């Protein structure tokens, strides 16, 4: 009968969608095995996450307000979450594997001397928590059991579907017990990306380009198709290392891991290092001249054709559909 706490992450007042995905999945577990789902939310200004959290499965939502929660700080977030966990003693704490969550979870787990599992794609309860997660570049999955009073588990964004099976959540507050003096590393500024740019790890659709686009000047073709889809634009390691595109676009083992609803690989052969970063996408489209390329082994739809001929036509066709 696990009580599951879900960290409801906000950045600049915006809630991360992975929070609702985690609440939805946690509620499935507690409906089957007993226990409650608790949302935990740290915020600076007034907030209202209660309704959304309840709708997605939270029985209760615990919030803590402090001016310091205006901007992420590893130490203060760790203090607040540790204070919550020590007071309410959840069995499991779910944290989205986002930039913030990946920074917070290990520090929090170490402070609590708690089990920590990252980047989970499956949760089950078998007398204790069992976490499924990809390892070895996604070439296999590991089922991990945890020991101790509480486990901190990172959840891969988009791994769980949203469900709106919950109702109204009870509202409660907690004291984050902040000791601001202990916070030594401080975020002094946040440089935001150009307006309109969609974050790769959060995008519903990702369009990526590889060697097949032949030169940096042709990456615009990828960006145009991405724009038509309302997608983020990604890249293979080969074209990042060649200097055609900035590293922040790289998808794969030494880049970003994405799991969008749709991943469109253009001129990408599908080296294992690339597959590591995108093979858990819901639907994969591969467009590549070489019909024997490994990317087609993970793809749902494939066109063994020339990206220079297919992409402009695809961009147009997608624009037509989007127009309705």
């Amino acid at each position, binding site marked *: 009968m696990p009580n599951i706490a879900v960290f409801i992450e906000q950045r600049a007042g915006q809630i991360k969608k992975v929070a609702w995905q985690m609440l939805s999945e946690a509620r499935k577990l507690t409906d089957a095995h007993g226990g409650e789902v608790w949302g935990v939310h740290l915020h600076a200004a007034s907030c209202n996450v209660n309704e959304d959290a309840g709708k997605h499965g939270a029985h209760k939502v615990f919030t803590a307000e402090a001016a310091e929660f205006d901007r992420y700080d590893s130490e203060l977030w760790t203090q607040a979450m540790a204070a919550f966990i020590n007071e309410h003693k959840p069995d499991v704490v779910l944290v989205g594997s986002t930039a913030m969550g990946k920074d917070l979870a290990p520090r929090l787990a170490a402070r609590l*001397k708690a*089990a920590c599992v990252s980047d989970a794609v499956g949760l089950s309860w078998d007398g204790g928590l069992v976490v499924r997660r990809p390892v070895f570049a996604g070439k296999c999955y590991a089922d991990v059991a*945890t020991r101790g009073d509480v486990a901190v588990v990172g959840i891969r964004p988009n791994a769980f579907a949203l469900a709106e099976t919950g109702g109204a959540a009870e509202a409660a507050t907690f004291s984050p017990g902040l000791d601001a003096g202990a916070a030594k590393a401080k*975020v002094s*500024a946040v440089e935001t990306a150009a307006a309109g740019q969609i974050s790769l790890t959060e995008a519903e659709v990702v369009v990526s380009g590889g060697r097949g686009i032949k030169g940096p000047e042709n990456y615009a073709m990828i960006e145009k198709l991405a724009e038509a889809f309302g997608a983020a634009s990604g890249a293979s390691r080969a074209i990042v290392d060649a200097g055609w595109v900035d590293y922040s676009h790289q998808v794969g083992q030494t880049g970003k891991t994405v799991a969008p609803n749709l991943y469109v690989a253009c001129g990408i052969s599908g080296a294992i290092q690339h597959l590591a970063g995108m093979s858990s996408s819901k639907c994969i489209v591969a467009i590549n001249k070489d019909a024997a390329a490994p990317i087609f082994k993970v793809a749902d739809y494939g066109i063994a054709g020339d990206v220079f001929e297919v992409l402009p036509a695809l961009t147009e066709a997608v624009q037509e559909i989007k127009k309705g």
Partner: protein
Amino acid sequence: MKIAVCVKQVPDSESRINLSGPVPELDTSSFTMIINPYDQYAVEEAVKIKEKLGDGEITVVTVGAEARVREMIKKDCLAVGCDKAVVVDDAALAGADSFAVAQVLAAALKREQFDLVLFGIKAIDDDASQVGIMTAELLGMPHVGYIGDLELKDGALTAKREIEGGVEVVDSPTPCVLTCGKGLNEPRLPSLPNIMKAGMKPVEVLDCAGLGVEVPASLTEVKQFAPPPPRGECTMIDAEDPAAAARELARALHEDAKII
């Protein structure tokens, strides 16, 4: 400036994963072992800092069987500019989880006063991305994770880390733990003469008892490995007429898969 760099040996990502037995077990016999690629950014950053300051000492720390990590320590660390190494070799640590390894590393790091402790952001075998930040907590040091840019000042540093839709600029005093990502630098390759000379650099080998700590218990345990979920067959669209193929793909995504 005293810098520590923590590295891990991992299977090359080209290594085949064989799952055998009724409860699938991992057959590691065919693995080719390499230095974790992210740790190379940490090593390179340490060497760059030392070169820039014109003084300092770089200590490499790893957990693993000495006979297996020896070449990695020599070729990938000492030969590119690190000064000495500490290898924690203890058979009781086989299968240790991130927190157990962090406790061992923290014990090894506490023996000296380091100004900076560098890690790779994650290891490419278990992809856990935990040990560096956990070690920071155990050492009572602040950390900046996933850095892509670093500037050192007197007794302080400014690092940049990518977040969704932007970059966080973080200021920290030293000592501090940093986890290093791609984009920070271009790791150099060792030269043959330097590999030869690296053999002369000191490598200290000890076990947990030698560090004065109990073998820490792991809080997580892999119950089983499983093959990844199978993906359905790929629907190939005839590419004879590329424009028609593109239209058919868009139609299929809209009407069949209902994604757009």
